[in-house]
């Protein structure tokens, strides 16, 4: 793509092609732009200073556009210089490294290098001063394929160092053909000279980095754009590139914002990036000069991105200069190193005066994208004054490098009209601040656009989320419907199977069923009456094996019936005795219980488990009640305890744990109920008396149903009494 479009479409062969024009050194222009005072002389003539190790390094785990890598170290661990702290487990992740050897103190949220000043997960490193390196494996360009190079670039934590922080391996790993690789060394913002100094001091390394980029992207030409206010840097780059035929160093006139990606593309190639597309779609890749340097270091020295040159400028500093700063150095240490004398209402800006942001806190660390720390005096960079009404002078539209209509955008931003904002291409705004700079009414236009852009992004996110939620909701409904159908089908199948089974089993079953019914009837009938008649009747229809079984069963039933009769007789006797006991008062009743229950047990000595269990339970319940009603008198409690243990041993002897458990549970429930009914003290005693009386009756008169009824009546009585006394 590219050239043919520009070569004499209209047949004028004399018109040179775009490539020829570029080769001839032609530089174009872009719309708008401003000429703020550059103020670069403060720092551009001084060598890069190296800062001593700070006390602490605060390394945010995410310093680029994308996601943070997976954490590899824990607090308390010792790390070596250059050791990766996070692992890039996907393509959008870029790792961070230990800028020096030391100990990891903590991994906590810390104020981030972002205008929001929101806390971000940050690793705090205490340097040990040894500068101990991990093992390094330098690569040579000839021996590597592109994959190895890209992996090295990613593993070295390189993200665009011009300010955006886009992962470099993604930008250089494109599959589209690339015509031009543009190296952005324009550095158009006032004050900043970090790239200038880098070119002055390390031009040969930068060119090695460009060589690596060329191997990866294979462009037709490399264009290095430098503003014409950096003659030393341009000369150094020209000298370093003298051996490369297709590297062209181009100086562009000083104008803000010629360092913007789209603006520089237009300056150097006269091409415009279509709305909503990326430069690579028109065959152009742009990299910052600092990124090229970092790539050379990473590949050829195995030196990951641990430090960067930061311009520290402003009139509050006694030594404004460029400083080679470790990533993670707090801004306060950096400023102090340069002789910071703060004044009242001091502002400290990260980034340049046009696109930077004011820091809320000086503990914010320097990150991979930090190219400047600005500490100006109030006269040097006055704070925004009063905003006035727009006078429709259209200076902003003249200054806009993206050819937008800032006035219109301002109205729509204020009205929050997202449709109109999209229509007027708010997304193309590069937030350069040229409109706000020229505005005579001092309207901070770019702030309005930032808010509106954030709002638009949020709306897009919401829309996407709504779509996902809808899809999930529909998928869930479909799943529920399917499950319902499957269940219905399964039920139908089961029913059909059952029907078939019934059909298959036939008439024999009917006879068996009838026999079973007869048997059930017999069991209900009394033992002695009319047994011989049915016996003969059934004997006639049954086989001999069945006959013996039925006979045995019948014999057992008879035995049971006899036992039951015996029990009943004994119970009646016991009941009469218990009635007498009920007439006496509560305390004697309590003391009498052991003997009572013993008597009851004696009467049922014919190994009746149920009776024993019930007795035990009642005894325990009574013991509890006694404890509640008469907590002061120790003696009855003791006797009751004896009673309960006695009862317990009895139940234990029964050797039926389930029954015992049931009995215990019943006892507990009764005790609870009793406790509830005995809330008020005055009626409690009488209620207890009634209850115990009822209980003793129940205990003696083995029939549990009767006992339950008696207890219920007693409770009802107690309640009534309590109610009447309350009212």
């Amino acid at each position, binding site marked *: 793509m590219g050239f043919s479009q520009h070569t004499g479409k209209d047949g004028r062969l004399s018109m040179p092609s775009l490539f020829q024009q570029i080769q001839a050194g032609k530089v174009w222009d872009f719309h708008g732009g401003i000429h703020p005072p550059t103020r670069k002389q403060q720092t551009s003539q001084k060598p890069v200073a190296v800062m001593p190790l700070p006390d602490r390094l605060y390394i945010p785990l995410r310093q680029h556009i994308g996601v943070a890598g997976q954490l590899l170290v824990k607090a308390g661990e010792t790390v070596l210089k250059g050791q990766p702290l996070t692992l890039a487990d996907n393509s959008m992740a870029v790792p961070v490294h230990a800028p020096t050897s030391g100990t990891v103190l903590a991994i906590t949220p810390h104020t981030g290098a972002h205008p*929001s000043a929101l806390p971000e997960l940050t690793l705090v490193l205490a340097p040990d001063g040894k500068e101990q390196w991990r093992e390094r494996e330098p690569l040579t360009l000839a021996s590597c394929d592109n994959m190895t190079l890209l992996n090295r670039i990613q593993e070295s934590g390189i993200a665009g160092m011009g300010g955006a922080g886009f992962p470099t391996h993604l930008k250089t790993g494109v599959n589209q053909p690339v015509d031009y690789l543009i190296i952005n060394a324009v550095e158009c913002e006032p004050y900043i000279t970090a790239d200038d100094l880098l070119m002055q001091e390390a031009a040969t390394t930068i060119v090695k980095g460009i060589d690596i980029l060329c191997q990866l992207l294979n462009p037709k030409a490399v264009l290095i754009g430098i503003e014409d206010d950096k003659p030393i840097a341009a000369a150094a780059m020209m000298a370093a590139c003298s051996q490369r035929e297709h590297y062209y160093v181009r100086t562009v006139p000083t104008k803000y914002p010629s360092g913007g990606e789209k603006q520089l593309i237009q300056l150097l190639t006269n091409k415009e990036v279509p709305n909503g597309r990326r430069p690579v779609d028109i065959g152009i890749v742009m990299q910052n000069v600092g990124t090229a340097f970092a790539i050379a270091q990473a590949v050829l020295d195995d030196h990951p991105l641990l430090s960067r040159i930061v311009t520290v400028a402003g009139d509050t500093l006694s030594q404004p200069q460029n400083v080679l700063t470790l990533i993670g150095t707090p801004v306060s240490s950096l400023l102090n190193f340069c002789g910071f004398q703060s004044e009242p209402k001091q502002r400290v800006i990260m980034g340049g005066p046009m696109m930077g942001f004011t820091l809320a806190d*000086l503990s914010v660390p320097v990150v991979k994208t930090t190219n400047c720390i600005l500490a100006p005096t109030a006269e040097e960079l006055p704070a925004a004054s009063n905003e006035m009404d727009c006078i429709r002078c259209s200076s902003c539209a003249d200054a806009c490098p993206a050819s937008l209509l800032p006035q219109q955008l301002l109205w729509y931003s204020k009205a929050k009209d997202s449709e109109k904002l999209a229509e007027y291409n708010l997304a193309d705004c590069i937030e350069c601040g040229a409109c706000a700079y020229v505005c005579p009414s001092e309207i901070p236009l770019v702030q309005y656009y930032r808010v509106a852009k954030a*709002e638009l992004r949020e709306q897009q996110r919401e829309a996407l989320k709504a779509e*996902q*939620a809808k899809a999930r909701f529909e998928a869930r409904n479909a799943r529920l419907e399917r499950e319902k159908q499957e269940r219905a089908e399964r039920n139908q199948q089961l029913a059909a199977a059952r029907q078939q089974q019934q059909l298959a089993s036939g008439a024999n079953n009917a006879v068996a069923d009838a026999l079973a019914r007869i048997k059930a009837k017999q069991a209900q009938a009394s033992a002695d009456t009319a047994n011989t008649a049915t016996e003969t009747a059934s004997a006639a229809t049954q086989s001999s094996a069945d006959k013996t079984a039925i006979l045995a069963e019948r014999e057992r039933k008879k035995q049971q019936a006899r036992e039951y009769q015996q029990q009943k007789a004994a119970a009646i006797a016991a009941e009469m005795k218990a009635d007498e006991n009920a007439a006496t008062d509560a305390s004697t009743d309590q003391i009498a219980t052991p003997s009572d229950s013993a008597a009851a047990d004696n009467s049922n000595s014919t190994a009746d488990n149920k009776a024993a269990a019930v007795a035990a339970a009642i005894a325990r319940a009574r013991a509890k009640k006694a404890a509640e009603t008469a907590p002061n008198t120790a003696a009855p409690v003791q006797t009751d305890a004896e009673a309960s243990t006695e009862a317990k041993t009895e139940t234990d002897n029964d050797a039926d744990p389930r029954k015992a458990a049931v009995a215990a549970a019943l006892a507990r429930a009764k005790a609870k109920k009793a406790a509830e009914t005995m809330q008020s003290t005055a009626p409690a005693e009488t209620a207890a008396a009634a209850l115990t009386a009822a209980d003793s009756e129940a205990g003696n008169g083995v029939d549990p149903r009767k006992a339950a009824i008696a207890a219920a009546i007693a409770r009802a009585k107690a309640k009534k009494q309590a109610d009447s006394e309350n009212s």
Partner: protein
Amino acid sequence: MTLVTALIAVGTLALVFGAVLGYAAIRFKVEADPLVEQIDDILPQTQCGQCGYPGCRPYAEAIANGDDINKCPPGGEATIRKLADLMGVEAKPLNEAQTESVKRVAYIREDECIGCTKCIQACPVDAIVGASKLMHTVLVDECTGCDLCVEPCPVDCIDMVPLTVTPERWKWDLASIPVKMVD
């Protein structure tokens, strides 16, 4: 004669166009009610049921059939405005006295979760994972903040917590930056 020719010509044309239109009506028939789709696209898809309908689509259908447009608290004023534009009716304030709330997501206090799966059954967008008698947790990215899981929880271990602001979601709210004196 000319009259007859003209009549025949016009008649033929009418037949041809009729046939073409008739074919187009069958060939390019629009299946669903597009109005319902449009309304559904405007609604926030939280599926919360606060409008009184079981989900956003049923409410969209109800609006298409003439129901009020002001029954969607999660959508807030913005949704009402859009619906009013679409339906050509007057924008009304939310019918409940509800302030437009901050975006919230459900959060399960995992220590207290008994694994009853009641919230999983209540979630309209399957944003809760977990199994019977095992701890459940909320997929924050999928949660629509509809509140429907809070009520069924027998141990009240679900909270609705406001989404934390991340640098990506931050809206250049410059007034909220804590002003700090640099010394």
